[in-house]
């Protein structure tokens, strides 16, 4: 037990973890440096910009590492390096695709790193999430309502999904913050309500009681509202899936998953007939080739990017991922596929898988069904499910859902949310409140 007020005494395991974290960060830095230099050679017009991105990244990595070493020596040493690795790689890809966007992204990376340090470093942060859960829920829902009423799209395009709030040069996507708020609320609600749930209650047939099934239906309703008013298939699906999985963890009832899946399929079926956006996504998922020049252009270009990358990739700056519309955002994984090939793709998949599984492992540090256990599981699932949805989408494994690839894609709100989630996970992985 560390005594408050004294500097924590490092155990042997902590020291090993610390040097592992440092080693991983240095390896990530070397990978990024090699790619930054290669990018400058291939694209002389970029000047020294890649080195600037690299420097911002290095400062964030060094500061984050020192802060975490100081505050949380017992944390999982893999989480922070993996998050930094992916966000640094993403920054380089964005810098290669749209240099002006990368400058803004570098700024957001610095902001996100600070947010991560705050989320991970301050005691009571996690407890506040629990104590003020209803306040959080009200706040989250009012932000959602505000987006529905006042939402805009920074591109100014008529008909584009209006998922942003803001004015002037600063736009934020409230759904990104809402994801974390809803996971925190769900974790605390389930911890409170389900911890007393016993096997006998279930066997006695009270499993359909509003106390158990109610929140599932509520969450389903919320997802449907997001789908209907925002046409945001990705966020709606993500909320619902993560929540279902959390309920499954809290109860261990497989029928929750089965029932939830049924509700999800019903919603998608209805949406297919009601909303053109859903119809489009499903149609081009089933057969994109017939409409390769039209509605399926993006997914066809995405698959061609993976094919063009082959196993070894074209090399940074040497492929043509810009043919994929919004390659810097939702489709950034296709850019990785074209320029780093299958090898790069597997590295990203493995990194995200390790991040998710280590996050789930953090949940085991706490009593089952406890708030902190559920919060750790929920945040890990949030990152994992979002990654799987978009990676599966751009590979035509799943229908396309417009979500970002965590840490990697362009977008300040997305990066900030991923880093805050990671910060909380790092704190929980150290077994701290």
């Amino acid at each position: 037990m560390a005594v408050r007020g004294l500097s924590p005494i490092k155990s042997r395991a902590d020291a090993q973890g610390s040097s592992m974290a440092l080693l991983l960060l240095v390896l990530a830095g070397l990978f990024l440096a090699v790619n930054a230099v290669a990018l400058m050679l291939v694209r002389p017009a970029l000047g020294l910009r890649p080195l600037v991105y690299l420097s911002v990244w290095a400062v964030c990595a060094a500061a984050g590492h020192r802060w975490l070493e100081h505050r949380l020596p017992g944390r999982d040493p893999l989480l922070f390096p993996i998050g930094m690795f992916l966000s640094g790689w993403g920054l380089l890809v964005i810098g290669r695709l749209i240099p002006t966007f990368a400058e803004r992204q570098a700024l957001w990376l610095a902001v996100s790193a600070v947010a991560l340090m705050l989320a991970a470093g301050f005691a009571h942060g996690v407890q506040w999430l629990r104590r003020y859960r209803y306040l959080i829920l009200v706040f989250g829902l009012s932000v959602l309502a505000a987006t529905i009423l006042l939402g805009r799209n920074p591109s100014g395009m008529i008909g584009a999904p209006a998922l942003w709030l803001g004015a002037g040069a600063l736009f934020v996507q409230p759904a990104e913050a809402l994801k974390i708020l809803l996971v925190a609320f769900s974790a605390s609600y389930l911890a409170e309500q389900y911890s007393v749930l016993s096997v006998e209650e279930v066997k006695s047939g009270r499993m359909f009681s509003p106390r158990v099934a109610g929140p599932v239906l509520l969450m389903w309703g919320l997802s449907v509202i997001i789908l209907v008013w925002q046409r945001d298939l990705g966020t709606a699906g993500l909320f619902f899936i993560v929540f279902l999985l959390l309920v499954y963890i809290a109860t261990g009832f497989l029928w929750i998953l089965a029932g939830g899946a049924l509700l999800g399929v019903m919603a998608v079926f209805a949406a297919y007939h009601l909303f053109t956006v859903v119809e489009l996504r499903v149609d081009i998922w089933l057969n994109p080739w017939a409409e390769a020049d039209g509605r399926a252009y993006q997914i066809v270009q995405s698959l061609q990017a993976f094919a063009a990358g082959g196993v070894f990739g074209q090399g940074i700056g040497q492929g043509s991922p810009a043919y994929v519309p919004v390659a810097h955002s939702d489709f950034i994984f296709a850019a990785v596929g074209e320029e780093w090939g299958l090898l790069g793709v597997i590295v990203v998949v493995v990194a995200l898988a390790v991040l998710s599984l280590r996050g789930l492992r953090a949940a085991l540090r706490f009593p089952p069904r406890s708030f902190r256990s559920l919060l750790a599981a929920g945040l890990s699932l949030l990152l994992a499910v979002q990654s799987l949805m978009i990676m599966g989408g751009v590979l035509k494994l799943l229908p396309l859902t417009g979500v970002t690839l965590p840490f990697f894609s362009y977008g300040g709100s997305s990066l900030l949310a991923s880093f805050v989630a990671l910060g909380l996970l790092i704190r929980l992985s150290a077994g701290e409140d």
Partner: protein
Amino acid sequence: MPATRALSHLAAGLLIAFTLVALSALYWAVVGPNTILRRSDNPRLVEAEASIVRGQIVDRSGVLLAVSERDANRRFPRRVYPHPETSPVTGYASQRYGVGGAEAAYNAILRGDTLPKDIWGELTNTLLHQPQHGSDIRLTLDMGVQETLAGALAGQAGAAVVLAVPSGAVLGLASAPTFDANTLDADWERLRADPGRPFFNRALQGSYQPGGAVQTPLLAAGLLDGQPLETEIAGATMPVNTAGAALTCALRLPELALTLREAYGFACPEPFRQLALDLGPRSVQAAFDMFHFGQPPSLAGFEFQAVSGTDTLEITDDNLEEMALGQGDMVVTPLEMAVMAAAIVNDGNAPQPYLLVETRAPGAAHWEPVQQVRPTTPYATAATARQLQDLMRSAVARGAAINAARPGLDIGGHAALAFSGESTQAWFVGFATLPGLRGVAVAVVLENSRDPGLAADIGGQALAAAHRALTGGE
């Protein structure tokens, strides 16, 4: 501990899901290159095509006719034609509209598709994304001759071909109106809609009635038959009415009696109508067949552009007069007439026209000659050919082709008129001999022209230019 079990189930589920993602990436990375990348809508194919650095096209003395220029501001090389007056020969290479002319005929060489594959080179090119480089080609074309032809035809509709004899090398080939390959993409729609049909290569594809130009093979038949050249024929300058048009001599002449030699010199139709009637359809047919009329020669590499073989002419008593006047179904191409002139100056043996001399692989210092066997085709006996040369010299000295004469040059030729419907064409077919070489041959046709003198003048300019080019001076 159900919660722990649920967590481990979820962990396993996530692992499976991530593995599925990796497997589908594996699928597209391995299967994709041979399937979806081959789709014509893959923009990378267009990009690869656009980044090919095509070889240069140069004329016989190395003047640059087409070059792919690369600079830092452009992603793809830009095809530049320093001498757009060669467009009827060099053609065009456009990303949007494809290739034409020599750019199409030698496309594989210029793109580099014919180069031997070297595995190591391929590998480094692929790794470093080096664009494909094509070979340079040298054409038989002579910029001096080509400029002369293009300048002379400017503002006209017509065509001209100059051949070196005995090789058959195309020294000049012009078709007017034409296009500027440098501004092709911008002008395409206007050029396509242009009633002057600038993309139509009149020298190779144009089918013209030969009219009076048919008199040369007829005369050859007459010579074989022993017809007297110097006997006067009464009413030789009378016009001949056929199909509603009155055919006249190449020059307006009063009613005169002329010898056959003189009638040929002025391209008067009446004596040749009589000659054909004397000879009969079989002899006329034999003469036309000997001169390969109706079988236009093709230019190696441009075969697809050649006029599809018109049905072999069958001359009967019914159409004998019309054929003897070079009207009706009888059509020839300017290249065909140039080959005929080349056969005459080459003692009766027609050379095969050709354009491609040699190629140079990218980066190589030396040119590789294109191995070609080009046998000549006998059109006439040496004796007949020499008699025809002599008659053509007379036509330049004292006939309608007098404008072709150039001091100090031995030039023979035949200027004539032809009618096609409402319009008239002026022809000049001729040759010049060269010291140490056989000579050069030329054919000129001017659409909507009643001025064979102008055609002869253009022919004279072309022959003089070719003389300068091949003798290297004056």
